[in-house]
């Protein structure tokens, strides 16, 4: 389940945020602290997660302390879906 979520997120990030559809995003790659996702795109990611998975991420949670990798974000989504 979680790997399916990470796959969807990885494809979204590569295609829509990085605009490099062939780019692989590893589960443990630091997204925010590594500079892959800048602050202007955090809200895009939050809106995508809400629309795609039906869970809300509060804007105060959009930082590296809440999630910095695909694995962490997928875990957050899984917990909120439960």
């Amino acid at each position, binding site marked *: 389940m979680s790997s399916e979520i990470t796959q969807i997120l990885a494809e979204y990030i590569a295609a829509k945020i990085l605009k490099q559809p062939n780019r692989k995003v590893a589960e443990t790659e630091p997204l925010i*602290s590594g*500079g*892959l996702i*800048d602050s*202007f795109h*955090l809200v895009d990611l939050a809106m995508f997660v809400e629309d795609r998975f039906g869970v809300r991420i509060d804007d105060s949670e959009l930082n590296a302390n809440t999630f910095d990798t695909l694995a962490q974000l997928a875990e957050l989504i899984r917990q909120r879906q439960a």
Partner: protein
Amino acid sequence: MTTLAHLLQQNFAEFPERPAVHLQYNRQPDVTVTYRTLMQGAAGYARALDAAGVPPGEVVVLILQHGEALVYAFFGAILHGAIPSIMPFLTEKLTPDKYRQDLAALIEVTRPAAIVTYPDFVPEVRAAVRSGGPVRAVLVSADIPPVTGPDLGALPGLRRSPDDVVLLQHSSGTTGLQKGVALSHRAVLNQLDCYARALRLTLDDVIVSWLPLYHDMGLIAGFVMPIMNRAPLVLMSPFDWVRAPGRLMQAVSRYRGTLSWLPNFAYNFCAQKTRDRDLEGVDLSSWRAVVNCSEPMHWKSHQMFLERFEKYGLRPAALATCYAMAENVFAVTQGGIDAPVVVDEVDQRAMLVDRIARPISPPLSGPSTALRSAQDAPTGEGQGGGLKLLSAGRPLPNVRVRVLDDQRRDLPERHLGEIALHSDCMLTGYYNRDDATAKAFHEGWYLTGDLGYVADGEVYVTGRKKDLIIVGGKNVYPQDLEQLASDVTGVHAGRVVAFGVFDEEAGTEEVVVVAEAEAEDTAEHQRLADEIRQRVTRGSDVALRHVHVVGPRWLLKTSSGKIARGANREKYLEERER
């Protein structure tokens, strides 16, 4: 002629209980700072600077984020007669090492006598401060209590002359931090006087801003002007806004905000990324001017913003424009206040080839006609060879604008050239940088490095002469990014170029880096691209949109052997088209 310290004191004496600033915080109630609390808080900082042995006339660097401490420290430095300079705070993606280097670069040129920061950040600051250097004191914001009933006559800031420097403004990156724009009390007050008149600013206005205070638009339009001119300010953190752009609209609705300033990208950003549920009950009818400023303005961005927010009461006439720069304190022109922003539709080919803005139809005016009739064109910009340009408005009454050719001769109306200006609110100079100051002026006129034209008294800004990238309103020097990318092992040293490419969806420039690898190997190129992205983002706080790693001898050089940014940008765009 007076000073900012006198004006603050006067506001306190006449309107002690009037709100100066409403500070908004994430998930906490707003904090209202009246002129009394502002004066008391600021006097606390003035006293602390005095106690630390910081003499008036010296620079005080403020490394503080959105909040009361920053407000008090800024005006406290002025009440002490010192020169505040706000440095951006460390962000989570910038490496502490690089931040330390930037801070050291700032200290080296600006030679501040003191730095004010948070307790947690003191070790970081100490690491950048050399013993025996100019910094004599590191003040901790938490240790500075307000002074109740301050002895106002004794504050050294009240003994400054109008020609003394009152504040410094830096742009970002190593290059920007070594070029602080020094502004005098006289220059700032002349700007506030003329700009307030151009805006028809009154005591009934309420300014709402999320802009950072280390940038001229945030510092002057979104901080100093409202506080000095007694128009209450609603201020939120840029970090909160970027995660929830609807906060801006909510604040306007709640406080009946009348004026806001936004860089062009923010029109797109707000329109695209504000959820309907964040706009429930929001009423934007009080907004009389939303001023587009600090990066190239796009007609489509205005249209997008209007379409999104018109149903929440946004009036088409509220869309306004401005051309501004720190070297003129802030505004050079203002448009869209007394009459709607003029839209000039010109022949695209004549612009590019003849460098003349030849109108293809009479200038449209009135948002109902300008925006609506333009809406009828399926793609707006560029349709049928016509290019719709937003006027930045007319020069402020104290500013004269000229358009010059390469030999610095005046050009006629509608001819494209470099914009030069003269006013009574110009910079005193780049602080401790007489070399840079001398280069910026020609016979007393400031050479802006911006390209544009004048038609019927309206100023149009079309591009830039100097290599500068503007991302989301923030000036980025390409040489800083090229240096960072050059440091990556496997990149051919010195064979890197950085430039901006306009992205219509985002409404701003996106940063592209093209780097030559030492080898022709696709897997290696991918690895290098990742590393360059990481290195540049963490070293500059600028997110790269495209990193293009190429084989040896891809980049074009000028006859003198320098990497030509413009030519390589063209080559990159041609390859991308294919």
